[in-house]
């Protein structure tokens, strides 16, 4: 054997294993990474250097401004005195007007705990909806929250939200009673049931409120402002717009021409009109049409308008999701004997909504930022507060960067959170293994 080995130059047998060695210096660790990612070609290298330079310029301008900032001063003039010509932000406006930025300038200051508590509970209420692996019992909190949240922020007698909730329960009970017979009877019966309940409750509420007075100080809608108003508008409008958008999308697919026609006209009309126009309508025009005694709260009117606006967009996004499903899914659901509501709820919508998540998030983020438009119809949301009471005060006239930077940061945090959640959700729901 060794013979052949020695004689032949072609045959080869290895008897020892080559020990592992590290790659050459230029091929490992940081150097390799830098070379591959930042300096892989001349153009790439030049771009890297230019980018670093740009980053340096931005940091050089903003870091001193951030780090050297004044957090404690009664007015912009004092800020300037303290800074004495040095570069630095006047963040004192944030600390001094913190409560105004968050709650508006008219919310009673001894009641700030209420919206704060409502904000914390908001997460408890949303958790079981957002994380479907949490125990389903927590959904009770979600169902209670709209009424609890209303009561915490606006206050008044507790019996108002209790009876409002009671109307829904009454409607649901009527629905349960008739659903075995027919969906239509159950649906309209539920609406009638709820309204009868509210009509009766209208008489009982004042009596009960006198007998058992559990109440919080009542806050008028005009007094609600600051970032709280943005949060209220964003959360409420989105929660309402999503189901409404689903209904509109399904309606647009309906085989019943009248329903289809109504949905198409609605969607196309609302999408064709700027939101700001709708807000002006809510502010001014609606007042002409509604009877004078129908003292419709401005916040409610704005909520309705933003909801309709967002619903139209969400409907179109979901329609795309519905269209992307193969007809085989509808046929399979039908062939198993599922009725329309069942096949929509169990088969079609879960898949269509999953496809639509990126689009819905797009609308959600846009809607949340658009809530600042209410400042144009003289409501004092975060931007309204900044542009109005704060910037026009003699103390803080001129601190644009700090204030608007703060507003941007708050909105960025919220929107980035929504976006991260949606990406997580998409990964969770990825079951098709394509």
């Amino acid at each position, binding site marked *: 054997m060794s013979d052949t080995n020695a004689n032949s130059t072609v045959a080869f047998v290895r008897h020892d294993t080559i020990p592992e060695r590290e790659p050459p210096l230029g091929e490992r660790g940081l150097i390799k990474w830098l070379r591959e990612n930042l300096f892989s070609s001349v153009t790439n290298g030049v771009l890297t250097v230019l980018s670093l330079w740009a980053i340096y310029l931005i940091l050089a301008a903003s870091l001193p401004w951030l780090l050297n900032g004044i957090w404690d001063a009664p007015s912009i003039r004092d800020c300037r005195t303290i800074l004495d010509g040095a570069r630095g932000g006047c963040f004192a406006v944030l600390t001094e007007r913190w409560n105004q930025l968050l709650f508006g300038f008219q919310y009673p200051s001894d009641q700030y705990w209420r919206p704060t508590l409502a904000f914390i509970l908001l997460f408890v209420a949303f958790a079981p909806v957002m994380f479907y692996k949490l125990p389903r019992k927590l959904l009770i909190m979600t169902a209670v929250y709209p009424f609890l949240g209303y009561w915490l922020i606006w206050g008044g007698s507790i019996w108002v939200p209790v009876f409002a909730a009671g109307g829904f329960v009454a409607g649901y009970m009527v629905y349960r009673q008739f659903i075995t017979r027919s969906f239509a009877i159950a649906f309209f019966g539920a609406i009638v049931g709820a309204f009868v309940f509210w009509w009766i409750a209208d008489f009982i509420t004042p009596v009960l409120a006198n007998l058992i007075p559990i109440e919080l100080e009542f806050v008028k809608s005009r007094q609600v402002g600051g970032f709280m108003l943005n949060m209220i508008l964003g959360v409420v409008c989105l929660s309402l717009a999503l189901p409404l958008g689903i209904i509109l999308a399904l309606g647009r697919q309906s085989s019943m021409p009248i329903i289809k026609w109504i949905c198409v006209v609605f969607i196309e009309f609302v999408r064709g009109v700027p939101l700001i126009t709708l807000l002006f309508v809510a502010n001014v025009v609606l007042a002409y049409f509604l009877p004078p005694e129908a003292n419709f709260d401005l916040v409610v009117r704005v909520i309705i308008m933003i909801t309709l606006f967002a619903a139209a967009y969400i409907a179109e996004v979901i329609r795309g999701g519905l269209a992307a499903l193969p007809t085989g899914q509808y046929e*399979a659901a039908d062939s*198993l004997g599922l009725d329309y509501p069942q096949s929509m709820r169990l088969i079609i919508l879960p898949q269509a909504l999953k496809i639509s998540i990126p689009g819905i998030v797009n609308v959600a983020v846009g809607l949340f930022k658009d809530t600042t438009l209410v400042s144009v119809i003289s409501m004092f949301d975060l931007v309204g507060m900044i542009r109005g009471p704060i910037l026009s005060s003699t103390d803080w006239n001129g601190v644009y960067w700090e204030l608007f930077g703060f507003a941007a940061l708050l909105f960025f945090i919220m929107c980035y959170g929504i976006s991260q959640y949606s990406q997580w959700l998409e990964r969770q729901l990825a079951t098709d293994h394509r």
Partner: protein
Amino acid sequence: MSDTAAKVEAKASAISDQVAIEIQNMNKWYGTFHVLRDIDLTVYQGERIVVCGPSGSGKSTLIRCINALEEHQAGSITVDGTLLSSDLKNIDKIRSEVGMVFQHFNLFPHLTILENCTLAPIWVRKIPKKEAEETAMHFLTKVKIPEQADKYPGQLSGGQQQRVAIARSLCMRPRIMLFDEPTSALDPEMIKEVLDTMIELAEEGMTMICVTHEMGFARQVADRVIFMDQGQIVEQNEPEPFFNDPKSDRTKLFLSQILGH
């Protein structure tokens, strides 16, 4: 020879004289296109029927009319004593009695195999979840994939998916099964596993209508073979005479093409 005779014997005895599906003078149009013309067909309980015919002849349309996935415009279809009308109650009732297996499986990709199988029993038949799961496991075992129950459809091969689709239909305990070319989207090596499942089902006496071009399957299990062309039933007969001695020229032509004579 005596073997086949025994088989025919066994077949004949499985068929009862109870009518499962009765189609009378049924016509269907797509717009102005007359897809199905004067269809008359009576299927008895326990009968196994294979439908074949050239592409576009209306085979799919015919069996989709039976569970109202397609609407017919004239004539009548009675399934298990229930007349198919536009009444939604009747339609849902018929659909829950009639299982359907599609060419492209149409499993629900967002649900696990087990959930695919228990969904309709739970929501349509109102069976408790526990019991529905037991039934599902029974049928998944029957189609030989109980170990896949917790996977998603996207993780299975085509043949496995089609067997799940069959199990899903069986979980509703249907009285009639419809198959629309169940093997034509499958690779050759997977066709056999699906056909075996169908043969087993046929041997248990399930009433079946299969649209298929698997002539071996037709010979082995069919009680009757129906040949369709241009929306009409052109010829129907027991498999032996149908394949060995077709009467119509169109059948002869079709058979010569499909059997490669």
